[in-house]
């Protein structure tokens, strides 16, 4: 409230300043001719004075005086400028301009500023600092407890500690916490990929050999772990194997089957890498049947609608999407990624037989892909899961 008051006050002040000359014809304006004449008279007096003091000779004084008088004569002959003191129009324009000043300034301000954003002095942020101190304190206590535990502390505790440190941006401490778990029996791909994330964050996004090892271990434990796949792709890309990185990301997206929270990041990353390789852009919609556009999938509006549907409606909706995909694939049977997606979708819907058929179609198409292509293993895994050959 006070803010708006001050804003209006400042605007009014500016307005008043512009219309200030309206207050009345104050003093007359200095005229050029009068001013110049005064200066020349002064110059004359100066020459006289210098001659009197003997600084210049009488001859020089005569010459100088003559010159100055010529100037005066020239000035008198010169055209008289407009008599500014007589003129006094333009009042309306002035008022109009004055009103425009705060309006325009407001316009500029609202396009550049952040009205109503409070200032926040460092000293006034004690709550926030206290919170931060409290978190620091709790974290330190947790760490101490875990360290003191003769059994080495429960794994959940270390995970919590590591995650907290990650959130605080203390990557080194986070990496240390996760490192404690890396040697344990119960270590999961999830923990290892968080460990890798801490190590990579610590180096400002550079995948170090150590981080790379951790990623590989995570992938040994669970080749489908999204974080593990993601960082593997980052590592491959940094090693210059951008093709492989791109393929890895796309394969994992294909294997997803349904919309998952991590997919968006995968798509972004795949496109970032794909751009340097000159590959065409991929879209989230082509991997999650739920988000496909009408020609080949549902529109965004349909997806929103789908999330509001009852369980049975949604199943029907998804089924219709899948059927649309199946129909499209009949006309374009060469689309390997499409078949993979269809196979996954059938898998999700529980139609094992159809899923297996789709995987088999995909396998035919993937025949000339190298064994290293992640899609090949995805197909093999899918066939096995759907009941074998």
């Amino acid at each position: 409230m006070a803010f708006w008051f001050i804003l209006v006050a400042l605007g009014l002040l500016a307005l008043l300043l512009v219309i200030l000359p309206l207050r009345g014809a104050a003093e007359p304006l200095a005229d050029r001719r009068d001013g110049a004449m005064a200066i020349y008279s002064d110059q004359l007096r100066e020459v006289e004075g210098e001659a009197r003091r003997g600084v210049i000779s009488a001859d020089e004084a005569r010459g100088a005086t003559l010159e100055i008088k010529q100037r005066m004569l020239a000035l008198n002959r010169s055209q008289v400028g407009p008599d500014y003191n007589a003129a006094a129009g333009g009042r309306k324009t002035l008022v109009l301009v004055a009103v425009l000043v705060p309006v325009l300034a407001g316009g500029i301000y609202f396009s550049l500023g952040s009205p109503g954003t409070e200032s926040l002095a460092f000293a006034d942020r004690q709550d926030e600092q206290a919170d931060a101190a409290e978190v620091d304190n709790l974290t330190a206590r947790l760490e101490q407890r875990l360290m003191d535990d003769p059994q080495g502390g429960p794994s959940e505790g270390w995970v919590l500690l590591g995650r907290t440190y990650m959130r605080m941006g203390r990557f080194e401490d986070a990496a240390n916490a996760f490192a404690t778990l890396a040697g344990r029996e119960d270590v999961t791909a999830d923990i290892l990929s968080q460990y890798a994330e801490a190590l990579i964050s610590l180096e400002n996004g550079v995948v170090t050999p150590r981080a790379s090892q951790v990623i590989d271990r995570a992938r040994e434990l669970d080749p489908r772990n999204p974080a593990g796949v993601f960082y593997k792709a980052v590592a491959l890309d940094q090693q210059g194997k951008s093709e492989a990185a791109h393929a890895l990301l796309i394969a994992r997206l294909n294997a997803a089957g349904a919309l998952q929270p991590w997919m968006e990041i995968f798509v972004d990353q795949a496109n970032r890498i794909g751009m340097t390789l000159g590959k065409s852009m991929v879209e989230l919609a082509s991997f999650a049947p739920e988000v496909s556009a009408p020609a080949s999938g549902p529109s965004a509006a349909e997806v929103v609608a789908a999330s509001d549907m009852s369980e049975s409606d949604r199943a029907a909706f998804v089924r219709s999407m899948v059927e649309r995909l199946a129909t499209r694939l009949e006309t374009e049977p060469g689309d390997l990624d499409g078949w993979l997606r269809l196979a996954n979708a059938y898998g999700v819907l529980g139609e094992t037989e159809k899923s297996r058929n789709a995987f088999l179609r995909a396998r035919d198409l993937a025949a000339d892909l190298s064994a290293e292509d992640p899609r090949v293993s995805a197909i093999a895994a899918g066939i096995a899961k759907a009941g074998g050959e």
Partner: protein
Amino acid sequence: MIPEIGQFALALALVLALVQSVLPIVGAARGNKLWMQSAWATSLGLVLFVGTAFAALIRSFIVSDFTVANVAENSNSLQPLFFKIAAAWGSHEGSLVLWVLILTIFGLSVSLFGTNIPAALRARTLSVQAWIVVGFLSFLLLTSNPFDRLIPPPADGSDLNPLLQDIGIIIHPPLLYLGYVGFSIVFSFAVAALIEGRVDEAWARWVRPWTLAAWTSLTAGIALGSWWAYYELGWGGWWFWDPVENVSFMPWLLGTALLHSAIVTEKRGAFKSWTILLAILTFSLSLLGTFIVRSGILTSVHAFAVDPARGIYMLGLLAIAIGGSLALYAWRAPDMEGGGLFAPISREAGLLINNILLTVATGIVLFGTLYPLFLEAVTGDKISVGAPFFNAGFIPVMLPLVLLTGIGPFLSWKRADLMGVGQRLKAIAVVSTLIALGIWYLTTGGPALAILALGIAVWLLLTTLKEWGLRIKLFKAPFAESLRRLRSLPRASHGMTLAHAGLAIAMFGFIGSSAWKTEQIVFVTPGVSVSIAGFDVTFEGTQRVQGPNYVADRGTLTVTRDGAPVTTMYPERRFYPVTRTGTTESAIRETLAGDLYATISVPASDGAAERAWTLRILYEPLVSFIWIGATMLLLGGLMSLSDRRLRVGAPRRKARAPANATPAE
């Protein structure tokens, strides 16, 4: 809230500046008194609003309001208050706000104190000044908004960059470049005169105080910057021909030329278009300087953050301001009537040579500053132009100039009697030569150029004193008569004497500390002695000292001369634990004869057994004379500025008729 008020104030200032850009100048063209008068209030508003914004920015820095991006990027809650405040103008955005503030203050000054200036000229000048304000305010708001917000605020400001902790680096560039903002108003006067199409003797008189004010503040800025580099930064020198120093020095050189050519225009009505050109070019060089410092186009110890978008915008501003004004000049200047004639030997001719030499010197500095860029653009080679080039190019131009400065004031206007002047100065020439030879003998053949230069400096000092003595008939008339003459002499005349003598005295310092500087860098352990310039300096060892927020190793140096104790010096090596940075605190023993300057730095090896410190000792003879001379230049400027004649105006509320009458004989 406060930052938003600052933001709004800047927006208001921009709109007011737009109003001031148009109304007064249109008013002057159409004879509208109301519109012309509006310049007074708007220029007051500009100072108020830009001042409000600057205050809001400083406040945000003081309380560490990290919701302001500029604050978060340039300061930290742990900094001492002084550093926080300094960071307000140490950042690119903040220093631009200060730049604009000074621009508006000069505009307001013309409104307040320029009452003797004809209304139309004043209105046009203020409009042109407002154009510059519009250019820089829009640059500020569109490319370098100081009040950009950061929500949510970071927990704390940026890491404590050691550069942010170096108060010298923060203060040095503003000192150097703020001085030259003043020439904006002279530029505005020149452009206004071109638009008006009238440049005469009276115009030169009206503009003189503003040229003097700008020149004086630039002199102060350069001297302070140099002083700061020498004493506070511990750089062990006072001038480095660094691009940032050069860009402040060029407007000074050209501004000095302008100061002198304007005198000819005022007295004789000659050099009109030349004076106008100098006024335009001086501020153009200031703009170029700001651009060079801001764009990072050249490497310098002082460079600010580089941003190509800013560079392009600013280059556009420069193109409009400089290109536009010079195009206007090319169109209008040829029509200016020539002034009074003069003989090849006359005061006018002397000032003409002065102008040529100063312009050539400026050209040399400009060329040396931009040459690396030219060469890189043409051949791709990268070089850096250093002190040797500038010394080789600059000094040979300056020496004849100083020689002439001694003679100039003796020359009379129109036609001078060189023989007569020669008669008067014969004795001084002999004395100067003898002194130079004497120094040669004493220093047993020091550098020939330095001895020549010293002789010329002595010449300038003596001729200046002689001229002053002649004017007041010192020793030629009774003392009371001389005193009376002293009082009746115009202040500007005293100003000239002070400034010329100041230049001579500063030259002693320049020459002494460049030519006879000695330096020793040695590894020392306690008890080791070093001899320098007749002093014996003994390193007694170091001590750990606890300061308010630092720990220091304080070295103790006892200085003796021929066995007699002279002084004890305590150079320090400080370490600030919070910021983990170290600084070097030099110890300086100042005398008129020369400064003894000592610094110690980190032990040469980590091995505890042989803790040898690196001791650097410099002896800079006569360096104090630089500061004395610079102060005299400054006082000379102020003295001239106080001259009564600069305020001559038409009597107020006078009817028109008497003014038209020819004054009585």
